């Protein structure tokens, strides 16, 4: 905690740097199968179409050792099989990376295998329920027609028996998800939506069987089976929609369990899983590799990209004795690090724990549907009981007939419309958002979003694009800019890359030499041309700082023999539509706040440019958490929008949270929704969709209740027939789904 507090700053990693996989990682994930072949699973980022799939499979297939390479386009994953050494994985991964994709190996056992199993179970249950519903309904239509045409009782009974034969096994198989969930809720002494569903389905099936055995007029198998089918359909679509978003977040797991290179006392290097490194061990960090442990630099001078941990987008120079943290990337020459903590004890792991703790708190939120069913279930069951008692005790009916009437009440109130009211809206809202590049991860995210009244933004990477861009690019003469960009093209430093981007046409210059912590040098006949930091040139601090204090870290200087040095200043530009979105949020009555770990002048400038009055600077992750907790105590419901690793705990602690897809993996995992692209308008789109969804859900629940007011008296009076029940149930379900479909047609308020 305290370590996190002293370290943390706001912001985002430059995505490409944070993402570069360390060497030696792919081999670590390779597994030897029983038949001697090696297998490796990887997520491949950047796959868009079948062409990408063919390209990757062809490139890998050309390798002589490869037995098979199969890309799954739906999940963006690659299953690789080859004969030979585990180390071959490196060159295979390099082949994929060389095509412009990103190869991220993972351990399939660590992924949420349970989710996939649940999805497949639901799909099988859905198939069985669908089969049964269609067949039973066919026979029910025959029975209804027979009632008008004068069907023989023997024929009717036979059709009832056939219905029972199909419906009962199908119900036993496909109603299990509801029964399990209902039983779990009852054991916890609570009630959820599945309790009335399970009770209703069980009683309907039981009574129908009883009626069939006695050769009675009515059996309700069709109602029971189609209810289960519709509810399973809603549930399956819901799970699928969110599963896609989750798989995007699963990448977090690849951050852990990396291997590091440990140098033994005899000087021999060995690859060891990060969590098994003991304090005091010397860890070798190659150029471009992510540091796997917390420790101090033993040997070497370099620059490290700490953006994953601190959010600082400018690399920090390090020298022997300096502290470095797991998750930072070494940008310069190789380093030797004396490990102080590894695995569970690193700062990275600490932040993950902070986040998980907050997440648990949030999971206590109870979905609207469950809150309704807490009221609904007792009322319905009491009403059925009253019907039974009324007919039996007051009207003097036989107990069998009274029971039939009571169960008819349960059937007609069976929460078909109520059960579909929320999922139907959820599925359409999720699909609508997904088409706009917004992934919803949490099932209750929409409900929580709709109730938010305060929006807290992080600065770097959230309100801004999170990467430096050359300021006032048109004030430099083309020749100077071309020269500087050509030199900068040789470096991976974020500022150098921003400079190179400012002059896209400039070719990379040969013969430059990078001096870690200083800059680039290009020896010319007339003397060396240098591009680099102010400290390297010994430029007078005070003179340079004049009037522009905030840009101190975000600049580069170009020195040519005989010419005055040229200063390139960089700024982190706000997202193009940020000001408009903030204005729109304020017009909608939201309190907008800016909380950043950055320096006060930088935060103030952005706040002023975007019209945010309430801002805080130099806020640590722990303070962000406390700030959100303070707002919660005031009774505010906070929507947190952030992206850095340091935002992750706050994202988890907020009432509801959103993060851009350029965010650190861990933040994407913590957030309830992730949006893609450069437009902040996604936040507005989310809020508007959530509000519209909430309105539709309320309308749907209202419609379901009105339907019950009409249907229940029919059942209580004992005049309900299976035909009426089918009409009423499918009618109300269609009304609810049709109402939800209005959300899909709604025009976007922010495009």
């Amino acid at each position, binding site marked *: 905690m305290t370590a996190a507090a002293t370290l943390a700053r706001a912001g985002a990693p430059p995505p490409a740097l944070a993402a570069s996989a360390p060497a030696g990682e792919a081999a670590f994930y390779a597994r030897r199968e029983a038949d001697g072949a090696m297998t490796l699973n990887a997520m491949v980022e950047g796959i868009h*179409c*079948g062409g990408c*799939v*063919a390209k990757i*499979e*062809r490139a890998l*297939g050309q390798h002589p050792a*490869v*037995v*098979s*390479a*199969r*890309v*799954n*386009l*739906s*999940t963006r994953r690659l*299953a690789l*099989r080859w004969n030979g050494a585990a180390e071959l994985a490196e060159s295979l991964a390099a082949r994929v990376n060389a095509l412009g994709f990103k190869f991220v190996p993972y351990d399939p056992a660590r992924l949420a295998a349970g989710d996939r199993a649940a999805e*497949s179970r639901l*799909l*099988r249950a859905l*198939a*069985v329920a669908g*089969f049964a519903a*269609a*067949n039973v309904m066919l*026979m029910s239509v025959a029975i209804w027609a027979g009632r008008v045409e004068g069907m023989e009782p023997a*024929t009717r009974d*036979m*059709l009832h028996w*056939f219905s029972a*034969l*199909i419906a009962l096994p199908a119900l036993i198989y496909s109603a299990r998800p509801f029964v399990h969930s209902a039983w779990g809720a009852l054991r916890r002494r609570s009630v959820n939506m599945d309790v009335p569903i399970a009770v209703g389905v069980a009683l309907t099936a039981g009574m129908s069987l009883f009626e069939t055995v006695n050769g009675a007029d009515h059996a309700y198998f069709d109602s029971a089976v189609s209810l289960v089918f519709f509810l399973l359909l809603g549930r399956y679509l819901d799970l699928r929609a969110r599963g896609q978003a989750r798989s995007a977040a699963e990448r977090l797991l690849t951050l852990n369990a990396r291997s590091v290179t440990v140098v033994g006392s005899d000087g021999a290097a060995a690859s060891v899983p990060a969590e098994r490194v003991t304090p005091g061990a010397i860890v070798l960090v190659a150029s471009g590799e992510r540091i796997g442990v917390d420790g101090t630099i033993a040997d070497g001078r370099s620059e490290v990209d700490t953006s994953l941990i601190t959010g600082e987008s400018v690399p920090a120079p390090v020298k022997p004795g300096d502290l470095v943290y797991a998750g930072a990337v070494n940008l310069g020459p190789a380093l030797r690090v004396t490990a102080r903590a590894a695995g569970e004890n690193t700062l990275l792991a600490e932040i993950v724990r902070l986040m998980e703790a907050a997440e648990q708190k949030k999971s206590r939120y109870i979905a609207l549907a469950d809150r309704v069913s807490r009221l609904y279930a007792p009322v319905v069951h009491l009403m059925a009981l009253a019907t039974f008692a009324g007919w039996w005790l007051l009207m003097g009916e036989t107990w069998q007939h009274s029971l039939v009437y009571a169960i008819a009440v349960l059937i007609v109130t069976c929460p078909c419309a109520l059960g579909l009211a929320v999922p139907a809206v959820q599925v359409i809202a999720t699909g609508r958002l997904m088409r706009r590049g917004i992934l919803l991860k949490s099932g209750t995210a929409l409900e929580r979003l709709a109730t938010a009244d305060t929006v807290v933004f992080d600065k770097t990477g959230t309100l801004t694009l999170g990467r430096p861009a050359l300021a006032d690019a048109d004030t430099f003469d083309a020749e100077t800019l071309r020269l500087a960009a050509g030199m900068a093209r040789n470096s991976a430093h974020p500022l150098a890359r921003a400079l190179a981007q400012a002059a896209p046409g400039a070719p990379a210059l040969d013969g430059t030499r990078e001096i870690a912590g200083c800059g680039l040098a290009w020896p010319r006949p007339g003397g060396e041309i240098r591009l680099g930091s102010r400290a390297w040139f010994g430029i007078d601090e005070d003179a340079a700082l004049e009037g522009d204090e905030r840009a101190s870290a975000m600049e580069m200087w170009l020195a040519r023999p005989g010419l005055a040095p040229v200063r390139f200043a960089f700024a982190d530009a706000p997202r193009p539509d940020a000001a408009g979105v903030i204005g729109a949020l304020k017009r909608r009555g939201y309190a907008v706040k800016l909380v950043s770990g950055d320096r006060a002048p930088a935060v103030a400038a952005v706040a002023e440019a975007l019209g945010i009055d309430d801002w805080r600077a130099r806020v640590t992750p722990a303070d962000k958490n406390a700030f959100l907790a303070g707002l919660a105590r005031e009774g505010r419901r906070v929507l947190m929008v952030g992206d850095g690793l340091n935002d992750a705990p706050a994202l988890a602690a907020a009432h509801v949270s959103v993060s851009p897809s350029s965010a650190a993996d861990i933040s994407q995992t913590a957030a309830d929704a992730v949006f893609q692209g450069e437009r902040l308008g996604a936040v507005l789109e989310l809020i508007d969709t959530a509000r519209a969804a909430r309105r539709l859900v309320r309308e749907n629940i209202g419609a379901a209740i009105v339907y019950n007011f009409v249907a229940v008296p029919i059942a209580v009076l004992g005049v309900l027939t299976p035909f009426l029940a089918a009409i009423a149930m499918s009618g109300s379900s269609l009304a609810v789904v049709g109402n939800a479909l209005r959300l899909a047609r709604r025009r976007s308020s922010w495009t």
Partner: protein
Amino acid sequence: MDVIVYLIPIAILLGGAGLAAFFWSLRNGQFDDPDGAAQRILFDDDDEPAAPRK
């Protein structure tokens, strides 16, 4: 109309066969990659390695 005594079980059996076929294809991995399956028919090189069997 007595013929329905035979016809209905036959209809149910045929439907059940369809259901069994669906279960088989689900277990066989036919639904693992619906997007990819739609695109693979367009690949014109047949020198790619065989798909792994489950």
